[in-house]
């Protein structure tokens, strides 16, 4: 095929320049992929010989035989906040507070991390680069690791959960906000600048109306994600219902664990649905 073009002195179209059957790059990639998978399976030495289906089946049955004791206070020392509904509510609020906290810090930082606002002056360009690198570093540390570290600092409980979640979220929200600012149409800003308005007026009049809806949308998306993450944080010392779930599993109380898992699923599904509805309205 390619010879048709070459013999006539024409450039060969990109699609026809390689023959898929004799393309060594393609075969090479395939060979490497297969080799990596082969080595991977060998190294992992996946062992299913100790699986115990009868025991597993018993656990599954217990998970479905819900023990409703955890729904109410069991003795004079327990209050509503020690019951599963109470801990669930605590966990949801943990996600909400963490989101609010990260929002406060991510919002101003996002403007400093937006290319179209910060380039044009060497000093601001340096700040831009610094803020974006900061976002990337903060974001790249997984929430669970952050919470483990914060649990060492603040001790087990809500403080570690809230601050850990908020810390991670500054990186995520900061990046999302910055990109929303970078995605705006520069035209209105140019027009408002031409009227003789100053920088603050331009941002307020031409930039804010364009980013308001994306910001609200991203915030709700992260709120949803945080409330979803919050129960897991209990496993690593972040407090809330996750901690209760962890304890019941450690004590083999699968009847309680099953009910807690069901409650978490219910909350996550509700959040998911509600957040999608709100964001659909905003777009």
């Amino acid at each position: 095929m390619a010879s048709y073009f070459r013999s006539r002195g024409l450039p060969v179209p990109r699609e026809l320049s390689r023959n898929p059957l004799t393309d060594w790059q393609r075969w090479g990639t395939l060979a490497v992929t297969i080799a990596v998978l082969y080595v991977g399976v060998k190294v992992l030495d996946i062992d299913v010989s100790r699986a115990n289906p009868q025991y597993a089946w018993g656990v599954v049955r217990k998970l479905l035989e819900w023990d409703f004791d955890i729904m109410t206070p069991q003795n004079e020392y327990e209050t509503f906040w020690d019951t599963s509904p109470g801990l669930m509510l605590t966990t949801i609020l943990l996600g909400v507070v963490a989101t609010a906290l990260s929002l406060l810090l991510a919002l101003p930082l996002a403007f400093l991390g937006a290319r179209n606002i910060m380039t044009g002056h060497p000093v601001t360009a340096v700040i831009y680069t610094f803020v974006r690198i900061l976002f990337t570093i903060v974001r790249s540390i997984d929430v669970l690791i952050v919470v483990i570290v914060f649990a060492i600092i603040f001790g087990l409980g809500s403080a570690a959960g809230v601050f850990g979640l908020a810390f991670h979220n500054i990186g995520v929200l900061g990046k999302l906000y910055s990109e929303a600012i970078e995605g705006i149409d520069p035209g209105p800003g140019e027009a408002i600048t031409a009227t003789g308005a100053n920088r603050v007026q331009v941002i307020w009049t031409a930039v804010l109306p364009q980013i308001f809806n994306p910001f609200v949308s991203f915030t709700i998306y992260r709120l949803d994600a945080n409330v979803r993450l919050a129960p897991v944080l209990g496993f690593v010392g972040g407090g809330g219902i996750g901690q209760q779930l962890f304890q019941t599993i450690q004590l083999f109380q699968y009847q309680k664990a099953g009910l807690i898992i069901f409650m978490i699923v219910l909350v996550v599904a509700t959040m998911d649905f509600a957040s999608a509805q709100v964001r659909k309205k905003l777009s």
Partner: protein
Amino acid sequence: MSAQLRITDLIKVYRGGTRALDGISLEITRGEFVVLIGLSGSGKSTLLRCINRLVEPTSGRVELDDIDVTAAGGGELRRIRRRIGMIFQQFNLVRRSTVFANVLAGRLGYRSVWRTLVFQPTHHDIDLAFENLQRVGILDKAYSRADALSGGQQQRVGIARALMQRPDVMLADEPVASLDPATSHSVMKYLEEINKKDGITVICSLHFLSLARRYGTRVIALKDGRVAFDGLPAEIDEARFKEIYGLDAVEVEIGVAKVRGEA
């Protein structure tokens, strides 16, 4: 009478080495309707943007009523920009905001930051906004979102916004290039009106020579960042046309039909 706008040896070299303006010198008198023509990339947009310094010229000088625009900084530059209205090919309205808010924004150069931040325009500015909306015939759209309007209506919002500045000069960067022929004439008529009635100097880049002949009192052609022609619209004949647009170019007419209102 001395020139209102004097441009001396203006050069603009973009990063990457594109020489958009290569030594432009012009004098424009108050009340002229100057039409800029030339191929895409000939420097029309850059020239217009160098006048109000949305684009920073590399060298050369722009003077408005003997005030050096190119030397002005900060507050002085913003005071000069107040006197120069501008409309754009893509209208550049804040699409999510109302028509009213967009028009009001034209007044920002006269207002303090805190008034902007707390959304407290003066009564005078509100009156002025309604007055200008009335003038361009879209008073009934004042409360619509800007992106709900047709292209021609959006450009009229752009004109109303620029009129809020009470400008001495109006720059128009291909104001009708995104519009159909009928709508184009309706927009051009508003520019003609503010030129004739208010005595605002108009500098307008256009793609259609027929529009240039119909509305311009003076035509300046740019080619490769230099002035290739400067004279009366009627002086552009076949030979001149080929000089400006290249030998293969054929003139395309945009009908100067009897157009009333707009589509």
